[in-house]
C-alpha cells in the first residue's frame, strides 16, 4: 500500500522511493527500524494504528509515538464486525442480544491479540455490556478464513479482510 501512494510522491521529491516491507511484531519491527534510523528524511515509516499507537502502550517496544511526526493522515482504516451471510444474526443488535443471553459463548476473531481489532472488540464488549470469547489470529485474512469456515461466529477486521470478501464475491 505504501508503494501505491508513495509512487505519487516521486515526481515532487525528485528522487525514487523504495518501499521495504519489514514484517513482524505487528509492525513494531518496522517502526523500531524507522525510529532508530538517521533522521535525514531518507528513512520514513508508513504505518497504521497498531504499531504506532497500540504496541507502545500494550507491549514492550523501544519507541513511542512521540518519536515520530506524522506527515498527515489520508485514509481512515475502520474495523467492521462481520458474520457469515447465512448466519442467524441479521443485525448487530441480534448478535448483542444473544451474547447477553449466553455470556462467553460466541467466539469473535480478531487479527491479533492487542491489535486494533482486538481493542475495538473490547470496546464493543464494554459499551454493549457483553462477554464474548476473543479468538486471536495472525492476520485479518486468517480471521476471515476461519469465519467463512464456521470456526468462529464473527470477526472484527479491517482493510485486507475486505479484499478477501471481494475475491470471494468475484468467484460467484
Amino acid at each position, binding site marked *: 500500500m505504501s508503494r501505491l501512494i508513495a509512487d505519487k*510522491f516521486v515526481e*515532487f*521529491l525528485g528522487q525514487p522511493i523504495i518501499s521495504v516491507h519489514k514484517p513482524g511484531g505487528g509492525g513494531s519491527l518496522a517502526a523500531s527500524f524507522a525510529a532508530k534510523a538517521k533522521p535525514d528524511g531518507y528513512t520514513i515509516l508508513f504505518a497504521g494504528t497498531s504499531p*504506532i499507537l497500540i504496541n507502545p502502550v500494550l507491549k514492550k517496544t523501544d519507541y513511542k509515538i512521540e518519536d*515520530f511526526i506524522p*506527515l*498527515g493522515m489520508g*485514509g481512515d482504516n475502520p474495523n467492521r464486525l462481520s458474520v457469515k451471510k447465512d448466519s442467524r444474526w441479521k443485525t448487530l443488535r441480534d448478535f448483542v442480544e444473544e451474547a447477553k443471553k449466553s455470556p462467553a459463548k460466541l467466539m469473535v476473531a480478531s487479527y491479533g491479540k492487542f491489535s486494533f481489532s482486538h481493542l*475495538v472488540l473490547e*470496546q464493543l464488549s464494554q459499551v454493549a455490556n457483553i462477554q464474548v470469547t476473543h479468538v486471536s489470529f495472525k492476520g485479518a485474512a486468517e480471521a476471515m478464513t476461519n469465519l467463512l469456515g464456521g470456526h468462529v461466529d464473527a470477526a472484527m477486521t479491517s482493510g485486507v479482510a475486505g479484499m478477501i470478501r471481494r475475491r470471494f464475491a468475484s468467484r460467484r
Partner: protein
Amino acid sequence: MNTNQRAEQHAQIPTFKELGYPISPSGGYSFYIQKDAPKAVFEKLSDAQKEAFERYPGEIKVNLLKFELIPEIPPCSSQEAFRRLIQARDEIIKTARERGLFEK
C-alpha cells in the same frame, strides 16, 4: 464499523455509533518521520505528499479504496493527525486499563 460516518464504499454498513454503541473512531495510515528530523526535511516530504494528493486525488483515492480505507483527500495536517493519534491512544489506554489488557 467504528467510524463517525458511513463509508462511501460501504454505505449499507451502519456505524457502531448510530446503532447505539459509541466506539471511538478508527485509526488511519500515515507516513511518519523521526521527531529529530530537520524542519526542512519535514517540509519537503510534507509538501510532496500535499502536491501528490492535489495532483492525483482520483488515483490516490482508488488506491486507498483498494485497501478498504476511507480516503481523506486532502489529507489532514500533521498537527491534526498527531492530535487524533494522541486522542486515540488515550482511549486505548483507558480501555486497556478497564479491561485488564496490559502485557507490560
